[in-house]
């Protein structure tokens, strides 16, 4: 059963009814049990709507999404460079992360392309082009800024982490630092060594990955 007030009940419930009409409706509700009942039901609908659970898709959609990302024109490796400059001002770690990703673009592309389609059998073996000017002073500076940024994020929350976890993280960061130092020394001795250059970049990225992981864990800890 509805009357002229029924269509206004939702507005009333949401606090959207003008004052004069609100008074009129409240007076009506005191005498009309039908409208009062509907109002209670509408309140319950709103409560129910606000508490609907989010559910994941039955299928894991990521493989299909990853395939679309890898097969599209805008692969991450292809687009990292222009973006890096634009974001530098607000999030320095973006730029550095991009630089490190670029250093290991061979490895990244390997993973991505491996999911897209297998490469045809090579008739002639051609080694990947060496990454030469990998560590320009600008790249180095951006990388350091990224490490410092992630360090700050981690340090802000590190007290939330168990002391054993902190020790483990620091131990492993030290291991990676040692690998980075080894690679730097090797590169100084043999600047044209493409493998060492890529290896250094890989180790630098691993350091960023570990810092990110630790920062995420610390942020998540209650």
């Amino acid at each position, binding site marked *: 059963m509805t009357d002229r007030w029924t269509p206004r009940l939702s507005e009333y419930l949401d606090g959207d009814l003008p004052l004069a009409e609100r008074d009129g409706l409240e007076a009506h509700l005191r005498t009309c049990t039908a409208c009062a009942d509907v109002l209670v039901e509408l309140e319950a609908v709103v409560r129910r709507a606000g508490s609907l659970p989010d559910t994941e898709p039955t299928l894991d959609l990521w*493989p299909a999404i990853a395939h679309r990302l890898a097969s599209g024109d805008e692969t991450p490796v292809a687009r990292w460079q222009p973006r890096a400059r634009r974001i530098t001002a607000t999030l320095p770690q973006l730029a550095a992360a991009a630089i490190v990703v670029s250093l290991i673009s061979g490895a990244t592309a390997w993973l991505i392309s491996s999911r897209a389609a297998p490469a045809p059998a090579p008739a002639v073996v051609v080694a990947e082009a060496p990454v030469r000017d990998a560590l320009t002073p600008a790249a180095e500076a951006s990388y350091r800024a990224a490490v410092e940024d992630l360090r700050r994020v981690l340090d802000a929350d590190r007290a939330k982490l168990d002391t054993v976890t902190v020790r483990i993280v620091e131990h492993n960061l030290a291991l990676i630092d040692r690998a980075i130092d080894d690679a730097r020394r090797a590169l100084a001795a043999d600047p044209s060594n493409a493998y060492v250059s890529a290896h250094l970049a890989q180790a630098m990225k691993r350091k960023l990955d570990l810092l990110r992981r630790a920062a995420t864990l610390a942020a998540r800890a209650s």
Partner: protein
Amino acid sequence: MLWTLLASAALAFPQQVDTTFAVEPGTRLQVNNHSGRIDVRAWGRNELRIETGGTRRVSITRGTRVVRVAQIMRHGPTDIGLRITAPAWMALDLTGVETAITVTGSQAAITAESVDGDIVLQGGRGLVVLHAVDGDVTVEGLSGRLEVNAIDGAVRVSRVTGEISIEAVDGDITLDDITSSVVSASTIDGDIVYRGTVQDGGRYKLTSHDGDVTFAATGSLNATIAVATFSGNFESEIPVTITRSKGGGQHFTFVLGSGSARVALESFDGTIRLRGARR
């Protein structure tokens, strides 16, 4: 997000939990146990059984297509041993902090993450993603795509069919009885061993900074193999002819058979070994 507030049914228990209820195919299980254990076994029924020894500090929330089990932490975390028996088809998301996680017999997608504790998985199908900080990761009998990120601990993977991607920092990586066309395994301080098939057109990459890398193909080996080291060694049981050399002379590539698969073996400071066909 709204989800936890929205439990369509939430149950509390007086002393401990031992409850079994029906779940519809397609329902996921999400478990968050801050400390203790999460042990999941699969069974053939469309029912979920949840047991906790001697505690009621667990909330069970049943949504439309998800069941969530979480340690209630109002008074701080405590050790809880969660034993769960789930339908084999049920996708699992398991997280903990000081938590050991085991999954046995599942035939579904799985994610598991623990900061301090081992993760042991037997079975699994589809995407399996495992993260450990301080603990070993063991995977056996998976058919699907495996991704492991371990920081301080060994990773052991055996009898797995499907794509494999493993990153470790301080720990060995052992891959045994693998059937895969895409394998990537990388560690900073640890050995890597691969024993498995090398499929035509497949891609295999093993990299360590300070550890030995051993690659043993089972069956035929038609691969273009790139070997790189700075101060390590290369040993091969298979006679190889180096067709190209570059860098400091310790980065070279050679072809076996048709050269169809691509294999990259790298160790900055360790020994790289290429083993002959076995079995």
